[in-house]
């Protein structure tokens, strides 16, 4: 086999073949493929031509770029992803200004329908609003042109997937997700989370290289290998949950013992992602593992529906439902019971005074009515 550019590059960086194969095996694991698949992956990565990637940043914090780079810990994945065919990435590329914009333009023109667009950040709905202009062009314009001509588009992170933080109420820039900003975009795939996990970005691209299409998706167009499990179902603290052992206060005895964070507002029961399994920062740890509740960052509108982050239930009209719903419900039940007693006293007294007669008993009722009227008169 002729030495590919990738292998030469690996050699130059002093990365052994063994390390490369370990990487392929770990990708197979993330993708939920059998171990035997790692050989197929290795072959695909070695021999296939790299897909051309274009990375667009709009209303974002570059957190997904950071995640993607795994800045502190360069690995084989970095090489595969960023030394090879990332034709445009504002934050990473050496070129700037017109040169950079030319690179984008020429990629779109030359590789029309063949490159993959990765989008980070949300897109303001109004092209003339003046929000988020790059090189004098609106984000909407750029997204429509670049994603519209791509073979496939990956929305990386929650902002590109669901609008994210910029789209949270009151959404001053009228921020949209890629799906909403570029209607009918081809082969769109979502990698929500804030930020998207580098393992998942890498695994997705490796899958694409190996299988030549996107993996199976969930109802939000997220790959099932990464979003098919509920955090809560794979959480290492689940045993504490099942036995009703909860952290009640930051730093209490239960917190120090790694009890479940449910009562501290953990959104693991409402969030699907593979954080407990794949973890973060090269398997160092993950949020719940270090004692912080899940914020639900991978779910639609998480900034609006998962807040308050440290309470069980969302607020109602700005009031904490976790704190007030049960007292209000109990008081309302009591109030209804009290009202019933008062209503009942009224009804029974009225009935005892003989006001109450079967409706069909006309004569009797009239007579009765008379009687009661005179009663009332005599009382006056």
């Amino acid at each position, binding site marked *: 086999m002729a030495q590919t550019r990738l292998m030469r590059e690996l050699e130059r960086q002093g990365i052994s073949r063994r390390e490369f194969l370990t990487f392929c095996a770990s990708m197979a694991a993330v993708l939920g493929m059998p171990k035997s698949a790692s050989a197929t992956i290795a072959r695909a990565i070695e021999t296939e031509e790299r897909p051309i990637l274009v990375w667009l940043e709009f209303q974002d914090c570059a957190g997904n770029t950071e995640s993607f780079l795994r800045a502190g810990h360069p690995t084989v994945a970095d090489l595969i992803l960023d030394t090879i065919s990332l034709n445009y990435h504002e934050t990473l590329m050496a070129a700037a200004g017109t040169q950079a914009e030319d690179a984008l333009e020429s990629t779109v023109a030359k590789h029309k329908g063949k490159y993959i667009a990765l989008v980070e950040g949300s897109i303001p709905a109004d092209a003339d609003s003046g929000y988020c202009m790059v090189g004098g062009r609106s984000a909407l314009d750029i997204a429509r042109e670049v994603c519209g001509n791509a073979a496939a588009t990956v929305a990386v992170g929650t902002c590109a997937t669901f609008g994210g933080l910029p789209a949270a109420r009151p959404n001053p820039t009228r921020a949209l997700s890629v799906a909403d900003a570029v209607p009918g975009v081809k082969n769109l795939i979502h990698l929500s989370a804030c930020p998207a996990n580098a393992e998942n970005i890498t695994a997705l691209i490796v899958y694409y290289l190996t299988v030549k299409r996107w993996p199976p998706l969930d109802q939000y167009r997220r790959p099932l290998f990464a979003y098919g499990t509920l955090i809560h179902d794979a959480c290492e603290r689940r045993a504490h949950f099942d*036995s009703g052992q909860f952290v009640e206060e930051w730093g209490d005895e239960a917190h120090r013992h790694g009890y479940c964070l449910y009562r501290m507002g953990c959104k693991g029961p409402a969030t699907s992602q593979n954080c407990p399994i794949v973890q973060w920062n090269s398997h160092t740890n993950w949020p719940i593992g270090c004692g912080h509740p899940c914020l639900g960052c991978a779910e639609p509108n998480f900034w609006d529906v998962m807040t308050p982050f440290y309470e069980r239930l969302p607020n109602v009209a700005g009031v904490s439902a976790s704190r007030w719903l049960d007292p209000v419900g109990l008081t309302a039940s009591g109030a209804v019971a009290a009202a019933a007693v008062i209503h009942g006293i009224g009804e029974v007294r009225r009935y005892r005074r003989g006001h109450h007669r079967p409706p069909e008993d006309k004569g009797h009722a009239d007579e009765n009515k008379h009687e009661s009227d005179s009663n009332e008169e005599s009382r006056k």
Partner: protein
Amino acid sequence: MNAVPSDAPLGIGRERVYVWELPVRLVHWLLFFSILILAATGYYIGNPFFSGTLVMARIREVHLYTSIVFSLCVLVRVYWGFAGNRYARWSEFIPVTRERLRSLWKSTLFYTFLSREPVEYPGHNGLAGLTYAVIYGVYFVMIATGLALYQVYAPVGSPLHVFRFLIPFFGGLQIARLIHHIGMWVILIFMVAHLYFVILYSTIERTGIFDSILSGFKFMPRKPPVKP
């Protein structure tokens, strides 16, 4: 004409009317007990205030199995709204006929002290019927939010995964959770009010309304034929 004052003792000058058929009574009591269990277990799930080996797991299990009983009851009762006797029909709950609208108006006036004539009718009066229609609406919301919350836990291959469309429908699992929690209080408040009205009616009408939900029979004043 054999007019009977409404406070005449049971049996004298009254006729036995078969009002609540067996499915109606069965559903009523199964709903009653399942709601108590669901509310107690649901309260714990939302606000787990004690611990013990696998308590949360067991309580969730009880909640889930009870919810199956509850949902089946609601479905059977809706079916019976088309198959049952006249007092069980859907039209007794959703007022579309003129009589039912009149009954609604009259019963509302009675309860608000604006009229002195209670609606004497073996089935539900207009206001009661409409209240039950609304509460069944709440039951459906509870079932739907419950299914949305459950389907993320459903095992692989479970048919309940078809309900995943309910998550975006409610605007996310957290919103479904909030609605589910509010619904519990709405139903409990309804139960308090329902109990009160039964006591009230059994005091002023003496039609045997309390026993009727066990036996199915009410004792209505004889003649002239009652109209809704």
